[in-house]
């Protein structure tokens, strides 16, 4: 992959959090409300816009708007994952955080391939979701614990070769959901754990389907020195 400096500049401008809208697409008022309350209660608070009950509503409202961070329920109205909807939203350049009760590896990997920036399983709790939203706002790669497991188990051809250390971090992160504990066990700082996870996500995005979000993620990762051009 080649990333010219022009794109890096563009991405840098896009990373301005002041104007990026955070929104929820979920057919349950309860979830919309919960996410809104969590964002407002977060320290520091995250400003969050109106929620939408369906992908169609969201797309209608954001037809030509700037890229938003979308907390996206995968199963709206029907009981099957709405991959097509996810793909549409991601293709428009929105940073999609899939927030679903589904935790199957194949569902998670499919979502990442379709352009979701991260995947948080509803059972993982609010702090992970808030972390994911914050990461998406500043265009940082983020890996949720269940997502870590899915990446760890991914045996698809064409997937990036993860270093042994990165695999260790992935599985430990899934086991504990705590970067501090992972750091303690592997004798590294929790910041290094975070860097490992970001690096994995960036590598993963680079190997995945071409999408706006992917180039953004990878560009950001290169800017931050998480990933090197040699790695690509």
């Amino acid at each position, binding site marked *: 992959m080649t990333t010219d400096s022009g794109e890096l500049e563009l991405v840098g401008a896009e990373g301005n959090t002041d104007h990026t809208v955070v929104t929820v697409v979920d057919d*349950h008022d309860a979830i919309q409300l919960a996410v809104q309350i969590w964002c407002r209660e977060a320290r520091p608070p995250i400003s969050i816009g109106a929620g939408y009950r369906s992908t169609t509503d969201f797309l209608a409202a954001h037809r030509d708007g700037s890229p938003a961070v979308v907390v996206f329920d995968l*199963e709206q109205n029907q*009981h099957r994952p709405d991959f097509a909807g996810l793909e549409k939203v991601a293709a428009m350049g929105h940073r999609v955080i899939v927030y679903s*009760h589904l935790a199957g590896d194949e569902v998670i990997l499919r979502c990442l391939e379709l352009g979701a920036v991260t995947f948080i399983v509803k*059972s993982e709790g609010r702090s992970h979701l808030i972390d994911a939203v914050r990461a998406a706002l500043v265009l940082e790669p983020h890996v949720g614990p269940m997502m870590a497991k899915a990446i760890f188990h991914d045996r698809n051809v064409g997937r990036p070769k993860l270093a042994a250390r990165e695999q260790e971090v992935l599985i430990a992160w*899934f*086991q*504990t959901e705590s970067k501090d*504990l992972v750091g303690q*066990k592997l004798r590294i700082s929790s910041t290094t754990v975070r860097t490992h996870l970001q690096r994995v996500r960036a590598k993963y995005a680079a190997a995945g389907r071409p999408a706006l979000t992917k180039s953004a993620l990878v560009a950001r990762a290169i800017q931050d020195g998480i990933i090197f051009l040699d790695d690509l």
Partner: protein
Amino acid sequence: MRQCSSLTAAAVALLDPAVPGASNTVLMMGLAVWAIYRLVTRSRSAIATAGDVVVLVVIGAAIPVLATPDEFFGMASVPQTVVAVSIATLGVQLPALWSATVLAVGICAYVSGASAVVGWGGALLFHDLLSIVVAWTVSVLLRLAIERVARTADQAHQDRLAAEVAAGVAQARRNSDREQLAMLHDTAAATLLLVGHTPHVPVERVAAQASRDLMVLQARPVTDHCAPVDVIRLLRDDSTYLDVPIYFTGLDHLWLDAEPAHALVAASREALNNVDRHAHANSVTIYAGRHRLDITDDGRGISTGTSRGHGIDQSIVARMQRVGGRAFVHSAPGGGTTVELQWRSDDEELISAGSRDDDELERNLWSRYGLALTASNILVVTVGLWHALSANIQMPAVQIGLAVAVALCALSAPLTVRHGGRWVLPGVVATLTGIAIVQQATLSESELVYASWSQAAVGFCLLPHLLRSPFARGLAFLLTLWIIPAVIVLTRVPTVHMVLAFAVGAAAFLVPQIAAFSFITSVRTSLRLARRENATRLRLEARVGVAEAMASQRDRRYSDTVARLVPLLRTLSQRGPITEELRRQARAECRRLRALFDESGPESTLLSKRIQSLIGQAERRGVNVTAHVDGDLPTMSLDTAERVLHHIDAALDRASTWARVVLTSAHDEVDLSVVCDVAGRRSPVRRPSGGAEVVVDKDTVWMTLRAG
């Protein structure tokens, strides 16, 4: 085959001018008539078989009437052929003990008959008996091989069936589980999450949601419209309400998809109602086939001129057409009525899936049946050669050489079957034909009649080579092998006697050879048919399992969970204040639901059930536990499982408010991880025994263990 051979033998005997006598003619006519009767009726009853035994005993005992001493010196006489072929075919048909009895009886009859012609103790008598015993041995060998092939194929099929049903059921369980969990997630879990984890949530909103959840959860689950239905059972149930007696023929069970099944039952019901109301019938017969159901009555019939009315057109014909089927009504005044219902089958695409079975069967066929054929062939060659040598023929060395060549040809069959190119088989046929021609050319005219062992041997030798050949091709080869030497010999010795000798030889050897060959083809055909049927059965059985699994799902976990959720949701729907106690309850239920969502599926092992029970204990102490158990854990020894459980128990015991249990597979081993907080717990953190690693971070303890 037995009857074809008898008929040929009888025809030969009747046409033979050298055998005079009225009793001979009568007996042979009788034999021919019996053979034709058996060929026409194709009965497999015990009486018919007993009749065959009687025929062979009579023919054996009547040798003095049937053959002159001169006749009897031939390679194969008419009575000998009938007795030997009958015994051989019965050897294939009957269990070994029974056929041994038949052999004993046959030999007794034959000996008593033959001794009257050639005297006791003659070498010829001994040879004849030997060939009969050899024929029997060969047939028993073949029977054993057939049984073995059948058993192996059955077993393989059963195993595959069981595996596929299990896989189908597991898949369906996962699907049904997902469906139910998705429903729970959309309703109660969402509401409880809101209540439990979000302060200052509007009471009105919670009440409205809780009421909706209650409505959804308490509604009866939709019955599964895809479950297969046994049409015959439904019709039997229906038939008890009718006055006319109903007889069922054909299939005992007819499992069909719900949609065509219900149409079929409804159409049949209408047809039966018509019979009951209008036909004045004494009985109704329902024949069930795989694609057809016939309902036939012996009533007064429908006259073709009158209008058929709404019943037949709408309730029967149109109904069947709606599900892609057809219906016909055949009737004549006074002649009863037949309603014929047909439906489409969509199992055709499944048939191509069986090529793996085909290969297995081919291998099996070769290894068992081919081996038996080769053994039989060597036996036949040995006996034939010995027969010839003991008759003091010229050039015995040539005979031995030829026999060895035939035996080698037989032994090379596995190579032809496995690696045979296009020209290998014709090559083998040419070689064998050559051997037969040379063998017979080296015999003098007088020797030809009794020392021509190649007549029998080359055909048997070819059989193992034909295992993969199509029927027509194989038959052509067999006939070539038979006819070319016969024509050459007959041009050399053009006597009636020789023609008859060949005809008897055909009855004794060619017919059994063709039968043995056609067996291979018929096994292949019946396997294909069986596979087609099995594919349908497999699908249907899997669906039955699915339906059962879904029913039991609704019965067990689902109803427990709903029963627990209902009181809480009811309280919430009453718009009362959301107290701390309610929040706590909501959180607890949320955790339970989460555990349910996290679980890999209902087929989760005993291990995950015991882990769940440990988690339950901790939750009762007020510890919030999240758990994840991989669905595809490797098989663990009992010791390993106990060790894992012990560590979970010990770790959870230390937890004060929350814990996270993760059990994942790591190649052939399992990784256990338990993270929990130990704030406020007095007991110091001890290092657990048995290779577990512990990391402590402030109040959090993380224990990991690799076991396998």
